[in-house]
C-alpha cells in the first residue's frame, strides 16, 4: 500500500518511505538477527537446562523409590526371620519339660506360618532332634550342623545360611540355621526353611521394569535369588554382586547405600538388620529414563523444528524486507524519474502555454490570450465602455527591410514597453504578430476618455528611440472600436477596430480613428471650410446618411433621420460635429439647411420613383434656421415643389433652439405644425427644457438624449429618469423616441418602460441612401435582420 501511496500522494509518501528506510537499515537488520538468535539460544539453553534438572529430579525420585522399596522388603524379611526368637522360646520350653513326643506348638507355628515351610531342631552335636516334615538326613549331615553351630558360637551371629548343594540350587528353600539357647547358654540349633514362594508373592505386583530386579544376597555377596522378569531367578550370580560386596565392606555394617553401577544400573541395597541377608533393588538407568528420554527427544525435536521454522521464517522475513527495499528503491528511482519527467513536462507545458499565450518577443499577450481575456472582460455586465485599440506601426516593413529584422524586433520590444507605459494595469495589451498591437482599454466611463489615451499612445510611439546606435522614429496608426456600440463581441470589435485602423492609415499616418466615424474629429482649417460651403453644395460634396427609427410595438421601421456628411476632398468623410458649428458661426447654415431639405425631398421622390414604400424622413433644423421667419414658408414651398405631403418630412429641433428666439421660433413651429409637419424635440434632457415649456410648443415627439440611454444598463437612477420621462411624456400625449440604443438590454428596458420608438446602432448606424433601401423593402426589423 505504501508504495502506491508514495507514488500517488507525493510528499506524504516520502515520509512513509523514510520510515521504511529505517526498517531496512543494515544495523537494524543485524540487531534483529542478533535478537532472534539470542531468543533461540535462550530457548535451547533453557530447555536443555530444564531437561538436565528433570533428569536429576527423576533419578532422585528413583533413588527414593528404590531405597524405600529396599527398606520395606528388608524390614519384612527381618520380621519374618525374627520369628526364630518365638520358636526358640517354644523349643526351650519343650526341651526343659522333657516332652519327647511331638512339640505340637512348633507344629502349630509352622501350620500358621507362610514364609517358612519346615522346622528342624538339632542338638549341639548336630543330631536332628525333631523335624516338622520328613527329610532325608543326608541333605544336612550332622557334621555340617555341628560346624555351623561352632561358627555361630564363635561369631555370636544370630543366624547362618546353610550352603546349599548345587543340585538343590533351583529349589525355593533357603535353609537358615538359628542358634537355640536357654538364656545365654547355647543348647543347639534350629533350622528354618525360608520359602522363596513367599518372597515371590510379596514382590509379584511390584513393577521394577523389564531390566530391573530385586535381589536377595547373603552377606558374603552370594546371590540367593532375584525377582526379575516377573519371576524368580536363582543360582546365577549377577555381575553386580562383587561390586556390591566391595561397597558393603567399604561402609559401616548394616549401612544402606545407593550407587550407580558400572553397567548403567542404579542400585539401592539394604541389609536385613542383624541377619546375614542383603536386599538389593536395582533399576536400569536407560530403562528408567526411557520415557523421559523419549519425551526429551520429542521436546528437542519440537524445538529443533520450531527453530528451523523460526529461522526459515526469519530468513524469509529478511528476504521480504530486502526485496521490499529493493522494490522501494526501484520505485523511489522511478518516482524521482517520474517527478523529473513531470517537472519537465510541466515546464514544457508552461512554455507551450506561454508560447500559446504570450508573444515571445515582447512578452505581451498573444492574440489567443488577448481574445480570452477580452471576452472575460466583456462579460462583466456594467454600464462602462471598453475600447479596443488596433495599433499598427507605419512603414514598419520598410524598417525591417532596410535596417534588418534585429532592429525590427528591438523596435517592437521598445514599442511594447512604451505601450505598457501609457496604459493602466487593468488594460489588456497584446501583440497580434508583425507590427500589430491590440489594446483593450477596460472600464471606460465615457467614450471621450478614449481619445486622450489614443493620442498618448501615438505620441509615445512617435518619440525617437535609439536602437543599436541608430536613431529611429516611427509613427503609428490606431483604430478604435467601442464596446458595445461597435460590437458586442470581441471578434466584431477587433474587426471594426482593424477597419478603423485602416481608415486612420488612409487619412494620413500617425493618426487614430474611431470605427464610429461620428466620433472622429478632424481638425479642419476653419477658414477653408467656411470658404468652401457654397462650393461644396455646388459640387455636391454633402451627402445624406439615414438612420432608421424603429417602432418598438412591432419592431418596424417607421421613419428615417437624415444626417448630413461632407465628403471633403481633403478630409474624406466629415461628420456634422466637425463642421456644423463652424458653418453656423459663418452664417451659412441656412444654405446647408436648405440643401438638406432639398436632398431629403429629392431622396424621397427618388425612392418613390423606384417604387419603394417610403417612410417619413426627419431632418435636423438648426436653431439659426428656425429663427428665420421665412423658414416655414420656405419649407412648405419646397415640399410643394417636390409634390410631397407634410407627413413625408418631419423636423427635429434641439432643446437649445427652443429656449432662444422664442417668438419667431414659436411662430415657425406653429406654422409648420399647422401645416401638418411633425416636430420632434431632439436631445431631450441635455438642456433645461421643462415639460411645462414643451406643452406650450407644438411638439409631438420627444427624443431622449443618448447619454441617458447609454446609462440604462446598470444605473438605476438613470433608469428611473428615463422611465419617469417616458411616463410623463406619455401623459402629455407625446411620442417618445430613444436615441443611441446600442444593446439588447436597453432595447428590452425601453420597451418595458413604454417607449414608442428607438434609434441607434443596435438596429443600424446611419447609412448611405443605397444601403437604407434594405430597411424600406424590409421594414419589419429583428435584431438578426439588423445585423445583416
Amino acid at each position, binding site marked *: 500500500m505504501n508504495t502506491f501511496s508514495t507514488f500517488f500522494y507525493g510528499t506524504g509518501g516520502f515520509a512513509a518511505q523514510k520510515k521504511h528506510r529505517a526498517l531496512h537499515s543494515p544495523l537494524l537488520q543485524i540487531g534483529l538477527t542478533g535478537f532472534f538468535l539470542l531468543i533461540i539460544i535462550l530457548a535451547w539453553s533453557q530447555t536443555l537446562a530444564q531437561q538436565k534438572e528433570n533428569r536429576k529430579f527423576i533419578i532422585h525420585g528413583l533413588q527414593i523409590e528404590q531405597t524405600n522399596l529396599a527398606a520395606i522388603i528388608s524390614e519384612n524379611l527381618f520380621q519374618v526371620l525374627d520369628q526364630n526368637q518365638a520358636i526358640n522360646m517354644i523349643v526351650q520350653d519343650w526341651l526343659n519339660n522333657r516332652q519327647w513326643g511331638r512339640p505340637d506348638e512348633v*507344629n502349630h507355628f*509352622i*501350620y500358621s506360618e*507362610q*514364609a517358612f*515351610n*519346615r522346622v528342624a531342631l538339632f542338638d549341639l552335636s548336630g543330631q536332628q532332634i525333631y523335624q*516338622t*516334615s*520328613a*527329610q*532325608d538326613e543326608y541333605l544336612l549331615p550332622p557334621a555340617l550342623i555341628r560346624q555351623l553351630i561352632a561358627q555361630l558360637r564363635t561369631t555370636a551371629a544370630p543366624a547362618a545360611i546353610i550352603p546349599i548343594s548345587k*543340585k538343590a540350587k*533351583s*529349589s*525355593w*528353600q533357603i535353609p537358615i540355621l538359628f542358634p537355640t539357647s536357654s538364656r545365654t547358654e547355647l543348647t543347639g540349633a534350629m533350622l528354618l*526353611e525360608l*520359602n*522363596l*514362594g*513367599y518372597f*515371590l*508373592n510379596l514382590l*509379584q505386583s511390584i513393577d521394577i521394569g*523389564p531390566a530391573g530386579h530385586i535381589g536377595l544376597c547373603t552377606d558374603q555377596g552370594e546371590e540367593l535369588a532375584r525377582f*526379575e*522378569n*516377573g*519371576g*524368580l*531367578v*536363582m*543360582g*546365577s550370580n549377577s555381575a553386580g554382586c562383587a561390586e556390591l560386596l566391595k561397597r558393603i565392606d567399604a561402609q559401616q555394617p548394616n549401612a544402606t547405600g545407593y550407587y550407580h553401577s558400572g553397567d548403567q544400573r542404579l542400585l539401592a541395597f539394604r541389609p536385613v538388620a542383624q541377619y546375614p541377608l542383603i536386599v538389593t533393588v536395582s533399576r536400569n538407568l536407560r530403562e528408567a529414563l526411557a520415557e523421559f528420554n523419549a519425551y526429551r527427544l520429542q521436546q528437542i525435536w519440537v524445538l529443533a523444528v520450531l527453530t528451523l521454522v523460526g529461522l526459515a521464517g526469519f530468513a524469509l522475513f529478511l528476504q521480504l524486507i530486502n526485496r521490499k527495499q529493493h522494490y522501494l528503491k526501484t520505485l523511489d528511482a522511478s518516482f524521482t524519474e517520474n517527478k523529473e519527467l513531470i517537472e519537465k513536462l510541466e515546464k514544457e507545458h508552461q512554455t507551450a502555454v506561454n508560447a500559446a499565450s504570450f508573444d515571445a518577443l515582447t512578452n505581451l499577450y498573444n492574440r489567443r490570450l488577448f481574445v480570452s481575456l477580452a471576452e472575460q472582460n466583456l462579460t462583466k455586465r456594467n454600464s462602462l465602455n471598453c475600447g479596443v485599440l488596433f495599433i499598427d506601426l507605419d512603414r514598419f516593413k520598410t524598417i525591417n527591410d532596410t535596417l534588418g529584422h534585429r532592429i525590427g524586433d528591438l523596435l517592437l520590444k521598445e514599442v511594447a514597453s512604451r505601450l505598457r507605459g501609457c496604459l493602466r494595469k487593468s488594460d489588456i495589451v497584446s501583440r497580434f504578430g508583425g507590427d500589430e498591437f491590440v489594446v483593450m482599454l477596460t472600464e471606460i466611463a465615457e467614450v471621450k476618455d478614449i481619445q486622450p489615451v489614443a493620442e498618448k499612445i501615438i505620441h509615445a510611439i512617435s518619440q525617437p528611440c535609439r536602437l543599436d546606435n541608430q536613431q529611429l522614429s516611427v509613427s503609428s496608426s490606431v483604430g478604435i472600436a467601442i464596446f458595445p456600440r461597435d460590437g458586442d463581441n470581441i471578434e466584431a470589435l477587433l474587426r471594426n477596430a482593424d477597419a478603423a485602423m485602416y481608415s486612420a492609415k488612409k487619412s494620413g499616418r500617425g493618426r487614430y480613428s474611431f470605427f464610429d466615424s461620428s466620433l472622429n474629429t478632424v481638425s479642419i482649417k476653419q477658414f477653408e471650410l467656411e470658404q468652401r460651403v457654397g462650393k461644396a453644395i455646388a459640387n455636391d460634396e454633402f451627402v445624406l446618411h439615414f438612420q432608421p427609427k424603429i417602432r418598438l410595438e412591432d419592431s418596424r421601421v417607421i421613419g428615417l433621420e437624415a444626417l448630413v456628411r461632407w465628403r471633403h476632398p481633403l478630409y474624406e468623410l466629415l461628420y456634422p460635429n466637425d463642421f456644423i458649428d463652424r458653418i453656423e458661426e459663418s452664417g451659412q447654415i441656412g444654405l446647408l439647411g436648405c440643401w438638406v431639405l432639398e436632398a431629403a425631398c429629392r431622396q424621397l421622390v427618388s425612392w418613390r420613383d423606384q417604387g419603394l414604400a417610403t417612410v417619413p424622413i426627419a431632418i435636423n433644423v438648426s436653431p439659426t434656421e428656425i429663427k428665420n421667419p421665412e423658414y416655414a414658408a420656405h419649407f412648405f414651398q419646397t415640399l410643394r415643389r417636390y409634390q410631397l405631403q407634410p407627413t413625408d418630412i418631419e423636423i427635429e429641433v434641439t432643446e437649445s433652439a427652443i429656449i432662444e428666439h422664442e417668438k419667431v421660433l414659436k411662430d415657425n413651429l406653429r406654422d409648420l405644425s399647422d401645416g401638418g409637419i411633425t416636430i420632434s424635440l431632439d436631445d431631450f434632457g441635455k438642456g433645461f427644457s421643462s415639460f411645462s415649456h414643451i406643452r406650450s410648443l407644438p411638439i409631438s415627439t420627444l427624443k431622449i438624449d443618448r447619454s441617458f440611454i447609454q446609462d440604462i444598463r446598470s444605473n438605476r437612477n438613470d433608469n428611473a429618469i428615463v422611465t419617469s420621462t417616458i411616463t410623463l411624456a406619455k401623459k402629455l400625449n407625446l411620442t417618445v423616441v430613444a436615441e443611441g440604443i446600442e444593446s439588447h438590454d436597453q432595447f428590452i428596458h425601453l420597451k418595458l418602460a413604454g417607449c414608442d420608438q428607438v434609434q441607434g446602432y443596435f438596429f443600424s448606424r446611419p447609412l448611405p441612401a443605397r444601403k437604407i433601401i434594405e430597411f424600406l423593402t424590409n421594414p419589419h426589423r429583428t435584431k438578426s435582420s439588423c445585423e445583416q
Partner: protein
Amino acid sequence: MRTMNRAITLSICLFLLLWLLSATGFCQQRGKPLYFSLIPKKNINQQLAELQPLFDLLEKKLQRPIEIVHPQSYQSVIESLLSHKIDFGILGPASYAYAKQRDNQITAFAAFEKAQGFVTPQGSYYYSVLFALTDAGYSKPEQLRGKNVAFIDPASTSGALIPNVEFADFIGQSLGKFIGKQVYTGSHDRAIAAVRQGQVDAAFVSSARLDEAVRKGQLSPNRINILWTSKPIHYDPFVFSSSLDEDTCHQIRALILSGAPELQNMFNNLQVKGIVAVSDSDYQSIYDLTAMKALH
C-alpha cells in the same frame, strides 16, 4: 441252637462293639475341621472358588468344615502334607512324587478328566509345552538358546521337572546351559503373562493352563507358537495325608468320585468331564523322571 444263639449274640455284640467304636469314632470326628490345600497353579483364590462346590458337598456330607491352607509355593503344599498340616489336597504329579519320596503313606486317589482343549486332548492327561509368541518368529526350540524362559515352580511337573529332564534329553544338554535365564514365576498364569508381556521369550507351562488362557481370551490361539510338547502327563492327583484315617479317606474318595449332581457346575466351569479314580501306579513315569532329575 445254643451255638447259633451264641453266634448271634456274639455277632450282635461284635456289631454293637463295632457300631460303638465307629460311633465313638464318628462322634470324635464330627465337627473337627478337615484341612485342605493345593498347588498354586494360577490365582489361588480363583482356584479355590472353582472348587467351592466340592468343598460344599464334602462339608455337607461329612458334617465337617473344610479349612483351606493358602499355599505360598508347591513346596509349601508338600511340607504341609508331610507335616500333617493338611489332611488332603491336590498336588502336581511331580510334587506328588517328591512328597511320596519323603512319606510313602501319601496316596493319590483321584484326578480330573479334562475335556478337549486347544492343546490338550480329552482325557486325564496333559502335556508340558514350550511356547512363545508367534510374533517372536521362533520355529524350533533350538532358537531359544541363551534366551530367557519362564518356569513355574521348582516343584512343578510341567513347569520344572519335565523341562529339566525330558526337554534336556530332547536338546541333549542341561537346561541351565541351554537357557539364558530361568525365571520361576510361581504359577502357570504368571508364566503365560510373562510371555505375553514380553518379560521372557518363552515359557514351559501346562497345556491345560494354556488352554484355559485361550478359553478366557487372555491369549488368542494364533499368537501361540508351540515349540515343544512333552509326553502325556497324568493330571494332578487328589492326595490324602498319611495322617488321615481310613474311614474319612473312604468317605472323601466316595464323595469326590460320586459324580454328584452338585459337582456338575464345577465340572462345567473347569471344562472337565469329571473326576476319575487314579492309583499310585499312574504316576510311575513321574517317579522315574524325579529319579532321573536327581541324576542330572
